């Protein structure tokens, strides 16, 4: 008996000595160990467990990661879940699979937590029950020198005996979202349904936090199946004034993910946003008020992303190439025509008489005179009429295209067509009846009410 006790004591002393030596003397290979080189002894292999989700930083199988995680992703949103600093070595697999512990045995407060800012890590006292340590007084924590698992350095990464009672602080910033663990727990949502198979892993890191795509498995369901899992963005996301999502979080900018409604705010978002907003502006209004639109569209300052370089010189070619973009901000008959008249680039207005100033368009013989050559203005008008309307007012066109009764040349049959050139498109006759009934004004600009051509449309 004595011999057995002596051997046990000798073994304990040896282990303690080895531990002290191991902590005091850290060889290079131990210092390179992730987490500061925890070892169980100078000759023992380095501690590799509990430092990462899997030993050696092995990649976690997709099936063990939280629902919604994808192979090529880099973890959950770093805007929602700020960077953590984990200083505790912990092996969830050991605790759950080998020791048979349930998640709530350590994370007891998760069952009742109603706010995402609640601290749900087990209190040190929880660890004390098995590890033999005493964390009751945090300024005088007592390790259990008789057990390896009772040593400070066993769990606290980077711990040195000379640190005394000081250990590195674990930093778990509060996530930037609303979350009510209790509601989910009460509805029998299991931990793994949001956090993945943590019981197959060792250390739980940022990667074990939920993905939005995983949340939408329930919150995005159709109404009856969804139950009380509200679909509104504000269910989870923090809000600011007027129930808009708070998109400035911890110095970072919250943006929609690539897979959400094709709304990734990529480098070319300025070009693309119109299509997304046109399809579903309510989606945009989760984050943006009209102010977001007017900040760029209010004409206060020329937006250089759209109007670069010497835009005053460049804009004519841009207007010819992609005129619909112009009318997203500019009124053709006031903004465009107004400025063109002020600068003398218009047929009407104070500088309309440009005989001694040179033509803006190609020579009259090509641009306006009959017969209609390939360079005639009619072709250009057909291709991009909006560009014409940004300089010309109705009167400019009516001068030639109106019937004689309306002050035009009226050289057509019976004084009907101006310059024998009907500007109307093919199939116009089949449309003119409805058009005339809905609004007769444009007809009357060129046609007298007694015009037989007008009568044919009545």
């Amino acid at each position, binding site marked *: 008996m004595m011999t057995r006790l002596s051997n046990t004591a000798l073994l304990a002393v040896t282990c303690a000595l080895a531990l002290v030596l191991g902590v005091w003397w850290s060889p290079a290979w131990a210092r390179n160990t992730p987490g500061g080189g925890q070892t169980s002894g100078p000759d023992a292999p380095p501690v590799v467990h509990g430092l990462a989700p899997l030993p050696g930083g092995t990649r976690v199988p997709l099936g063990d990661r939280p629902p919604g995680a994808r192979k090529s992703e880099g973890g959950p949103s770093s805007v929602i879940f700020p960077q953590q600093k984990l200083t505790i070595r912990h092996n969830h697999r050991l605790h759950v699979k080998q020791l048979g512990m349930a998640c709530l045995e350590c994370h007891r407060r998760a069952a009742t937590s109603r706010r995402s800012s609640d601290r749900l890590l087990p209190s040190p006292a929880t660890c004390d029950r098995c590890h033999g340590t005493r964390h009751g007084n945090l300024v005088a924590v007592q390790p259990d020198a008789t057990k390896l698992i009772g040593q400070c350095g066993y769990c606290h990464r980077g711990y040195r005996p000379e640190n005394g009672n000081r250990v590195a602080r674990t930093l778990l910033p509060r996530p930037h979202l609303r979350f009510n663990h209790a509601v989910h727990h009460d509805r029998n949502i299991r931990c793994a349904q949001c956090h993945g198979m943590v019981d197959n892993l060792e250390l739980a890191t940022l990667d074990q936090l939920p993905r939005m795509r995983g949340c939408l498995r329930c919150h995005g369901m159709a109404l009856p199946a969804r139950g009380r899992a509200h679909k509104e963005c504000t269910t989870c996301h923090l809000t600011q004034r007027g129930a808009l999502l708070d998109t400035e979080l911890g110095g970072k900018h919250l943006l929609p993910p690539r897979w959400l409604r094709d709304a990734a705010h990529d480098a*070319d978002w300025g070009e693309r946003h119109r299509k997304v907003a046109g399809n579903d502006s309510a989606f945009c209004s989760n984050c943006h008020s009209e102010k977001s639109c007017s900040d760029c569209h209010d004409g206060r300052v020329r937006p250089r992303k759209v109007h670069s370089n010497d835009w005053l010189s460049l804009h004519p070619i841009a207007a010819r190439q992609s005129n619909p973009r112009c009318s997203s901000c500019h009124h053709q008959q006031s903004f465009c025509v*107004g400025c063109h008249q002020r600068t003398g680039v218009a047929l009407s207005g104070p500088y309309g008489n440009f005989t001694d100033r040179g033509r803006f368009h190609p020579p009259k013989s090509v641009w306006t005179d009959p017969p209609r050559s390939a360079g005639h203005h009619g072709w250009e008008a057909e291709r991009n009429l909006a560009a014409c309307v940004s300089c010309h007012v109705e009167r400019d066109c009516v001068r030639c295209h109106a019937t004689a009764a309306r002050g035009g040349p009226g050289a057509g049959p019976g004084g009907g067509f101006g310059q024998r050139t009907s500007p109307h498109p093919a199939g116009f006759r089949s449309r003119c009846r409805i058009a005339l009934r809905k609004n007769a004004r444009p007809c009357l*600009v060129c046609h007298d009410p007694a015009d037989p051509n007008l009568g044919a449309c009545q």
Partner: protein
Amino acid sequence: MGGESVVKAVVRRTLGILAALVATLWSPLGPRTAFASHTEVDTTLDAQSYVAPSPYGNPVVRRRRFTHTLGLGYFDILDDQTASGPQLSLVARMRLDADFGQSSAERSPNRLDRYSPGLEEAPFDLMYAYVDARRYAGGWLGGRLGRQYQSDVLGWWSFDGALLRITTPAYLRLEGYGGFEQRGGLPLASTPRFSGDGVYRGEREGLDVNQWPSYLDESRLAPAYGVAVESHSVDWMHARVSYRQVINRDRVLATTLFDTQADPEMVDEDRVSTERVGASVILMEPDLGSVTGRAVYDLYNQVLSEHAAGLSWNLNERVTLSLEYDYFMPTFDGDSIFNWFTHRGMTTWLGRGSWRLARRVDLSTSAGVRQFHSEGDPDEHAEQLAQSTATDLNRSQTGTVTDVLGSAALRYGWGPGSVLVNGRGEGGGSGHSLGGDVTARQRFAGGYFDTLAIVSLYDWHNALRAGRDATSFGYVLGGGISPAEQTRLGVEWEHDMNRLVGQRFRVLGTVTVRTSR
């Protein structure tokens, strides 16, 4: 202009300037009392100076612009902070756009050599002002009252009136609105947007009929209403069908060449201004991508004025490839003759790729073609004319001019700064434009200082205007300080140089203040 109108204009302008100044002074200095609800005032003042010379050399339009926007918000009035509780807010935004570079002669009807109808020195514009109610009656009811924007497949539009939104449990949301179309706002970015006007819709009040020979008569309220049905709470799809009609009630001139006649003819009955129905749909599968579609039918013009489709494939978490098709044919206000001029739309095919190359770097590129169509083939028609065989235009043929276009944007962002390299080009029968910019921004001292630098190089050629092609280099240097949260004072210097203008300069100063409590 009558004396009453002058007084009204002066009063309106004075009130605008006073409101702007009072708000600017009040916002940072006002008392700070804690309220459960949330109020916000934001204001931005810009002063900029530049010149816009005529391409003929004269006249030279000198611009000394002072613009001021003021936004007011009173949010969460009911102080219900629950995520699904009712919400009531009040927001407004107004704008003053003064140009002190204008010559008074440009606004004088007595100076027909300089007079530019409709030009104002300091117009004031109420952009929007409405009460917004959401999630009433257990989430079923919502609505807005006041001047508000409406953005959907029919365009970005605004009106004065009321909107009611009913969210049913049957995946459908019904929307109905009525009021008056907002008209007579500033020529830049007032309404309607995304649609050509074709007629002047500005303020003509007080002008005699001979002072606006090219324009329509004064504006009267234009009744407008619309209905929409859209899906909600369907995870894989969103669709919206929308209908809108706007009625013109102005008394307008029909005979624009009335100076050749004794009595100008006027039209004053109610008539259609715009009447459109549109639908948009997006089908989504997050692991795969999305399919989008959009179409607008103009009931007045009786044409399908817009249709578009897109296919987007999320190759993985970092790469999206897409193919887009878009057809757009301009239509105009029902009063405009331009609706009935032969014109076709333009068709754009675009392939796009977007890559997140690294956590801080993303690249977007696109390439495609844009086609402009005409009714009849210009070359064919010219040839027939030369052979004297053409008696009339062969409208069964279609002429097509094709442009090739492409763009690339590379963005590298780090905490306090970013660099954006942006290049784009389009070229074809009508000419070309090709160039790019490099934009760098950096904040220092925790955001107290910020800087901006842009370098830009573009080359263009307009086939329709000989001698107006150029290669232009420009740069912008700017900086600012933020002495308090949401407050910034900044300046920018822009310098462009090319053979057309020689040197062009622009100086801009900005003050932004936002306060909330």
